[in-house]
């Protein structure tokens, strides 16, 4: 039903085909954009379609034909959504690549500092543990950034949570293959090599003391021999810990990622509203 204004131009209320089109577009955009951003874009599309329908009505078309042609001329909802998300993603990819580069730089700096302090004998066991935790953080962050960049580039409907799961699984694989047991030396791992070198150093220190004891060293060497005897079992036994650490970090990254996306959306909407006449 049409209403007339003082200017005698027909005013088209939202109906049928236009509402359906806006619904489709909203569904496509909801994969990545915030509610505020989607509503703003839909308002602009709605205004455009109304103008298109009004123009065609003035040319003498009936309402049904005017709506159909206006929607056709605008383009399919999926194509329009893809174009919108492509420009959004291009910006996001640039930002995430910068974050990735920053994280990589921080990782290199961290390793450099740890190696330097270790060579000076300034890092004890606790320091090395913190080094492992921080390494886990960086690996999880890099994996998360890679997953979200991939998802943004493909504009694929991959839920945000799945990138967290992928990040945690990557973390577990990293810990399994490169840190715990299955890295070179016939099944002994990087950690095992560290334990062996530490044990030898402790033995030297203990033997130089008047009343030295080798209990801690014996425990270390027992753990090492178990790891060498059953590397897969030892790796599997670390699974709950590695998965827990990985999932915790992945959950944290997902939360931060979602928080930044919401903040970015809110800031964009506030900036545009500031220009309202």
């Amino acid at each position, binding site marked *: 039903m049409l*209403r007339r*204004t003082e200017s005698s131009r027909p*005013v088209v209320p939202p109906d049928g085909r236009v509402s359906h089109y806006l619904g489709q577009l909203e569904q496509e955009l909801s994969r990545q954009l915030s509610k505020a951003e989607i509503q703003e874009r839909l308002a602009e599309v709605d205004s455009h379609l109304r103008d298109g329908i009004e123009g065609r009505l003035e040319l003498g078309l009936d309402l049904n034909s005017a709506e159909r042609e206006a929607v056709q001329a605008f383009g399919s909802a999926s194509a329009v959504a893809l174009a919108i998300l492509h420009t959004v993603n291009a910006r996001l990819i640039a930002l995430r690549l910068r974050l990735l580069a920053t994280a990589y730089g921080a990782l290199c700096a961290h390793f450099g500092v740890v190696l330097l302090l270790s060579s000076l004998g300034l890092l004890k066991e606790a320091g090395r543990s913190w080094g492992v935790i921080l390494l886990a953080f960086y690996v999880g962050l890099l994996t998360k950034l890679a997953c979200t960049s991939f998802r943004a580039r493909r504009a694929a409907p991959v839920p945000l949570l799945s990138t967290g799961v992928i990040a945690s699984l990557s973390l577990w694989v990293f810990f399994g293959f490169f840190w715990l047991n299955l890295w070179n030396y016939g099944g002994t791992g990087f950690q095992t090599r560290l334990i062996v070198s530490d044990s030898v150093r402790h033995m030297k220190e203990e033997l130089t003391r008047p009343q030295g004891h080798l209990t801690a060293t014996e425990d270390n060497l027992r753990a090492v021999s178990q790891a060498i005897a059953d590397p897969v079992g030892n790796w599997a036994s670390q699974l709950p810990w590695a998965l827990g650490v990985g999932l915790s970090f992945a959950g944290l990254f997902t939360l931060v990622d979602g928080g930044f996306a919401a903040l970015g959306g809110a800031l964009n909407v506030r900036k545009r509203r500031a220009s309202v006449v």
Partner: protein
Amino acid sequence: MLGALDGGAAHGYEIARRIKATSEEALAVGEGLLYPALHSLERDGMIVAEWVPQEGKPNRKVYRLTDDGRGALAKKRKEWARFAAGVSAVLRPGASGA
């Protein structure tokens, strides 16, 4: 799009209509694809947008050129004129000298 806005502020539908009319329908892209490009130009500072209230209808977003946009448009016009002149020269009958 910058060229279409050179004639004055316009909303998305009007921009599409100007492009189509000025080009005598030689340029007729999907109207929906204009908006991602408009938003990119807005982010780059070439154009600014404001929501204008309308009587009896929802607000309408209107775009206009900024000074940076006018500068970019002038630059693009020069580049295009040079390019078009070059292509025309090559395509002119007997231009190759063969």
